[in-house]
């Protein structure tokens, strides 16, 4: 009788030990999962598509909008007639004078 009791006690103790081991194991797995998730490369945020340059709003009044259009045209004319576009001419002329 005593022997069987002892055996039963042993069995119970073993079972408890096993349970604890299982618990530790599952905690460990969860920790690993957390680490994996946190270490995973974060998706790089997609840069927002460049918004097309919004044209200056027009008023719908021809006399006002025409002046506005001519104002931007004046700036273009200044650039179009700039002599800096002929800098290459200066350099080749200098080169040829020294042949």
């Amino acid at each position, binding site marked *: 009788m005593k022997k069987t009791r002892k055996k039963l006690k042993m069995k119970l103790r073993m079972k408890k030990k096993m349970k604890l081991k299982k618990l530790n194991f599952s905690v460990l797995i969860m920790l690993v999962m957390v680490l994996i998730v946190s270490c995973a490369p974060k998706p790089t945020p997609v840069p927002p598509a460049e918004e097309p340059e919004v044209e200056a709003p027009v008023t719908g*009044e021809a006399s006002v909008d025409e002046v506005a259009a001519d*104002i931007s045209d004046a*700036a273009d*004319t200044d650039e*179009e007639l700039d002599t800096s576009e002929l800098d290459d*001419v200066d350099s080749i002329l200098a080169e040829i004078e020294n042949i």
Partner: protein
Amino acid sequence: MKKKGAIFVLMIFLISLIPISIAQDLTDNQKEAEELEKDRLKAAEDLQKEKLRAAEELQKEKAENSKEIQKKRVTAVRITKEDILKERKFIDLRKERLDRLKELRKEELEKLKHLEKEKLERISKLNKERIEKLSNLRQKQITRLTTVKEARLSKMLGLSEERLKKIADLDARQIEKLSNLDRARLDEISKLDKAKIKQRLDKIKIRKVDVRLKFKKRIVSENKKVEIRERFERAEERLHEAKEKIKERRSSLIEAKEAGNDEAIIEHAKKGLLRAAEAIINHLEKVKSKVQESEDLDEKETESIIADINAKIDEINDAKADVEAATTKEEIRAAAKKINVAWKRIKAKSKIHAREVVNGKVRSLVKRSEHLEKKLDRILAEMEEKGIDVEGIDEKVTQFSDKIAEARDKLRQSNEKFKEAKATGVDEDRKTLLEEAKALAREAHDDLKEAHDILKEIVREIKASYREADFETDDEDDLIEIEDEEDEEEIEDETEDEEENEA
């Protein structure tokens, strides 16, 4: 003994009665006195009540009297106002306009009743605040100010009372001139003292604009413009090609130089020179196209610039012939020198012509913006007449006017630098002055851009509350051009004088 005893008792009884009778006597006296006092008090009370009643009655009577007097007075004022408002020129006004005038005090109305019907009508279109401001002036001042049209009158009434009084003392011609100015100039001039206002106004000319030209110096037909633009694009394309080839030839030339290959040097130098000449000619063609297309230069200016550009093109073409004929290094060097010298002169001239085109454009833009301000004044006056109020719109128009004034000032400075550049004989000075003129013109251009951003906002706000606003039609008043002769030096003097005055 019994008797004696009885008498004794009776005596005691009688003696005991004495104090009672005395006491009775005393209480009677007291009662009498009390009654007397009561009577006196009652009499006094009655008297006071009587007095109070009398006073109340008197007060009532007085109040009634004063009410009656006031009533009589009010009736008298109403009668007088009514009398004024019964006059033909008042009756002829539209109801809503008359209603505005009805709100005025008798004294204010009296100042207006002498005005002609036309002037009265002008005033009746103004808002209450402006009518009151005007009616605070003397009768003569009102008569003088109301000679100008309502839109201009309303603009002038936006000035402070102090300035308004100063202006109202000017003669009709000066008031008319002043009323035609934009808000920025009006503000600037109205700050000055009377003598200076007159001096300043003498330098300003108001000119009617040619309806056909509308701030342009000449008209270029649409067909011609298309043709010129095509020519411009072709020249630009050829210039681009020439530049590409110049780069190629230059590197080939450097290689040939390094290799000591004279034949290759001559070939690449010749072709390089020809490409350089082509680039110069095409750049000049571009400037020529812009001059031909410009409506901001008059015929004379255009002809003179084009003749000069053509002469420069011929000069380069001659040099090109020399290059083609050259067979030796020396001849090529000589041709290169010739082109280089010509190019240096041409470059300076090209910059001058480009500045003429661009500054002409900016000048025209300033004029057209001033014209838009005039339209705004007209529309604001219409809105005022209709009782449409847009909060802060007047301030925004003033901001717009100020920005145009800044652009005008920068353009004037740019033109001065440009004049100096044309006059100087020193190349380096000319280059610096032209750069300065260009920078100032760019600043003027930026001011114009800012002004038009404000204008767009103004137009949107106006259209939101006054759909019928007409920006396209030109009123007789809109087509006016201001010619201001004042130069910078004089402005500086005036500012100094002003500062002295203020001190």
